[in-house]
């Protein structure tokens, strides 16, 4: 087995600097938006007393779910002993931490009283899944950092047992975290779209998909940047297969969720609202989640050319999966709130507090800026870390040349041409 | 070596000297005037002044939990000894228009010291920083519902009106 080598990102091309500048600008805009929301109150957003969680929460939950899924590549390499994934384990851990921090930042800045963060971190009601999540999220950062340490520190990396233990701990913790995030909605009895145990496994399946999509996008972008083939053909094939399986898993859980609810007369109202009559929500569901977010990228994966030529298709498919993820969370979070609460089931109601009416929600610019800045924050953390420490894999000399030879159309008959190091 | 140390000491001394010169000598000649909170209206506070100066925040933090979670609002019924609105009532300082000033005004009792000490407080995000304007003439003494008293008053006025009318036309 060739020794694993890693590299830092030393040189930055002009397009990369432009990307960094874009992310910096977006983070600044997001922070400004958060300050604006805090000064003036939530009246400046599109949120109201019916739809209390808006676009920032969609982005935050998306990033947190993606974070737990991004750890999968590392888990697969240590917990499930798939050594082919080992070169990507460090980047996987880094991405997990970065995405989680981005998501948490958005969540905290959207609070009505973000100045009370210290209260949130010291006063707990342990019957609340939210309180458990605070521990799960912060613990995740610490555990993954320790996991990275076990991989990257020369002394620690010598102990296979330590690495294995950290891998198992991180994997278990990540499952608990995603279950906790799904249970935020699954535990709610009040809203008809929620109150379902399937939301936890649905979120786990979604985390696999979003996490891997983020990982693939970052790896392929970094491949361009380092001009290195960070993902050889074999890995591309594996990731392509995994993306397809995870997307089908999400589709399966989504189908079970909706079909089960449609079956019960009590829930038909909310399901028809989300799937047919609710205006923007069926549009976002069918066009956004199913069409653009599942069917189109699956087709791309299925019909893309094999080998490294299919790289662009896989990149595009990953981006589309992520858009589909945002759409899915929009329907779940916003659609679930927009449907009116049924205080008097079967009756027609009206009141000055808009009982019986579908919640109107139009996202305001500060919300969009805050939510998007979470993604930028995560990407900036990744960019900084890649420069400072060796997270990116570097294929050993022989293998790189072999892949370069294959790409040039030469056969594998000469596996060790010159041993030139790149 | 010794010259370096002596120079360092001299620099430190001059910095301290300059600092205290800038801060003022306590007579209000510096940039930030010393706090001069307005005199309160009541006879005495719930604790002595020096106790309050050091510990009012601890008293407030403890009492608020007692009040909100355990429902303890007063030790002497009829007074507001355990309520923040009681503090606000006594420590209200009138402004130019005669009405007590709110926390936005630098002349507010709490503002005087908190601005000087640069300690921001968020009490007045939720609590009124000045007493509400007096209620209507009927007022409320807390033992009889306003509505019932008003009802009785209306009834009484109606009956009096009837008596006056009788005298006028003799019926």
């Amino acid at each position: 087995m060739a020794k694993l080598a890693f590299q830092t990102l030393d040189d930055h091309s002009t397009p990369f600097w432009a990307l960094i500048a874009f992310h910096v600008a977006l983070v600044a805009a997001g922070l400004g938006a958060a300050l604006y929301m805090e000064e003036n109150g939530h009246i400046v957003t599109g949120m109201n007393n019916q739809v209390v969680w808006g676009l920032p929460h969609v982005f935050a939950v998306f990033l947190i779910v993606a974070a737990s899924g991004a750890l999968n590549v590392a888990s697969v390499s240590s917990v499930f002993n798939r050594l082919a994934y080992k070169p990507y384990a460090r980047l996987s851990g880094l991405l997990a931490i970065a995405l989680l921090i981005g998501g948490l930042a958005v969540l905290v800045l959207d609070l009505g009283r973000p100045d009370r963060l210290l209260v949130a971190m010291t006063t707990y009601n342990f019957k609340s899944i939210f309180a458990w999540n605070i521990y799960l999220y912060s613990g995740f950062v610490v555990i993954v950092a320790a996991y990275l340490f076990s991989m990257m520190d020369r002394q620690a990396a010598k102990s296979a047992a330590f690495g294995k233990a950290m891998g198992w701990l991180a994997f278990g913790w990540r499952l608990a975290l995603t279950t906790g995030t799904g249970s935020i909605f699954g535990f709610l009895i009040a809203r008809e779209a929620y109150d379902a145990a399937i939301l936890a496994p649905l979120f786990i399946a979604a985390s696999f998909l979003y996490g891997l999509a983020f990982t693939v996008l970052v790896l392929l972008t970094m491949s361009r940047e380092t001009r290195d083939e960070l993902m050889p053909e074999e890995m591309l094939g594996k990731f392509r297969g995994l993306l397809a399986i995870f997307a089908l898993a999400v589709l399966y859980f989504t189908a079970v969720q909706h079909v089960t609810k449609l079956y019960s007369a009590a829930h038909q109202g909310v399901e028809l609202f989300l799937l047919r009559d609710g205006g923007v929500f069926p549009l976002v569901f069918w066009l956004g989640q199913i069409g653009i977010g599942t069917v189109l990228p699956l087709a791309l994966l299925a019909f893309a050319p094999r080998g490294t030529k299919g790289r662009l298709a896989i990149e595009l498919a990953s981006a589309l999966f992520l858009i589909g993820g945002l759409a899915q969370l929009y329907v779940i979070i916003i659609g679930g709130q927009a449907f009116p609460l049924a205080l008097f089931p079967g009756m027609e109601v009206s009141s000055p507090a808009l009982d019986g009416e579908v919640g109107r929600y139009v996202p305001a610019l500060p919300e969009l800026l805050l939510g998007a800045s979470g993604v930028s924050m995560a990407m900036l953390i990744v960019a900084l870390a890649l420069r400072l420490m060796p997270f990116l894999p570097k294929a050993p000399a022989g293998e790189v040349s072999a892949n370069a030879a294959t790409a040039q159309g030469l056969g594998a008959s000469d596996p060790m041409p010159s041993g030139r190091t790149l | 070596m010794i010259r370096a140390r002596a120079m360092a000491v001299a620099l430190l001394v001059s910095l301290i000297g300059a600092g205290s010169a800038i801060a003022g000598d306590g007579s209000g000649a510096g940039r930030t005037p010393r706090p001069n909170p307005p005199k309160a209206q009541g006879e005495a506070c719930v604790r002595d002044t020096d106790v309050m100066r050091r510990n009012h925040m601890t008293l407030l933090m403890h009492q608020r939990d007692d009040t909100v979670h355990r429902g303890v609002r007063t030790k002497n019924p009829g007074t507001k000894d355990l309520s923040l609105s009681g503090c606000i009532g006594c420590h209200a300082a009138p402004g130019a228009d005669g009405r007590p000033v709110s926390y936005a005004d630098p002349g507010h009792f709490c503002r005087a010291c908190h601005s000087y000490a640069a300690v921001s407080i968020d009490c007045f995000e939720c609590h009124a920083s000045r007493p509400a304007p007096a209620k209507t003439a009927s007022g409320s003494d807390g033992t009889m519902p306003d509505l019932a008293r008003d009802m009785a008053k209306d009834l009484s006025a109606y009956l009096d009106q009837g008596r006056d009318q009788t005298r006028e036309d003799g019926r």
Partner: protein
Amino acid sequence: MSDARDSRSDLAADRRALLRGAGGLLAVLLAPGVTLYALGGTEAAARAPGEAVSPKVRWGLLIDVNACPAECDACVAACRTENGWADTGHSATDPHWIRKVSVRDPASGAAREVPVMCQHCASAPCVDVCPTGASFRRADGIVLVDRHICIGCRYCIMACPYKARTLVHEPVHDQTADAPRGKGTVEGCTLCAPRIDAGRLPACVEACAAKGAAMLFGDLNDPNSAIAKAVAARAPARIRADLRLDPGVGYRGL
């Protein structure tokens, strides 16, 4: 003739004196905060000063929807005055500690108005989900928001099936002394806890007593209270009884 008139005016004067006396007696009976509907209740027995609330008491409401006229808004107006919230014209973000919901049965066309406020559930979902414990149930059954530790996450608003809680969307000024409220925290009906602690009635119940006496307030745990007797005589309906939250607010005529 003048004799008859004198005697008649004397009689009239006596009648008026009697009425005035009766009115005075009535006013005395109406104090301290005891309504006709609740004569014999125990809410006048306030706690000793400095004594904490106890679970021996459970405050509750009983609302007779049949006695609640459609055009009457007394409870809402009284709550607004007492607690300092108002409509700003934006229904979506305005507070609604109490509101009247117009309910119409599409099958029969029967319509009625139901005053809905926080139901002060014994198993309140808002209390379960609050991450800091700001949403809590006081020992005597009142569900409150401790706005000192509320971080404004709005999870309790997601969790409440009764739409009882709202977020304060704008900065607030000149709050009433008994109802501090501020931007970024969540609020809802407090059952006028400061008034109850002083031995009075909630503002909505008082206002309703003057208009139509559709609301009854009292200690559900005291078998001698009017509300406990009413509940024991005939079990009231609860909104969303299927959720089994054991609300402290019961309704007649739902």
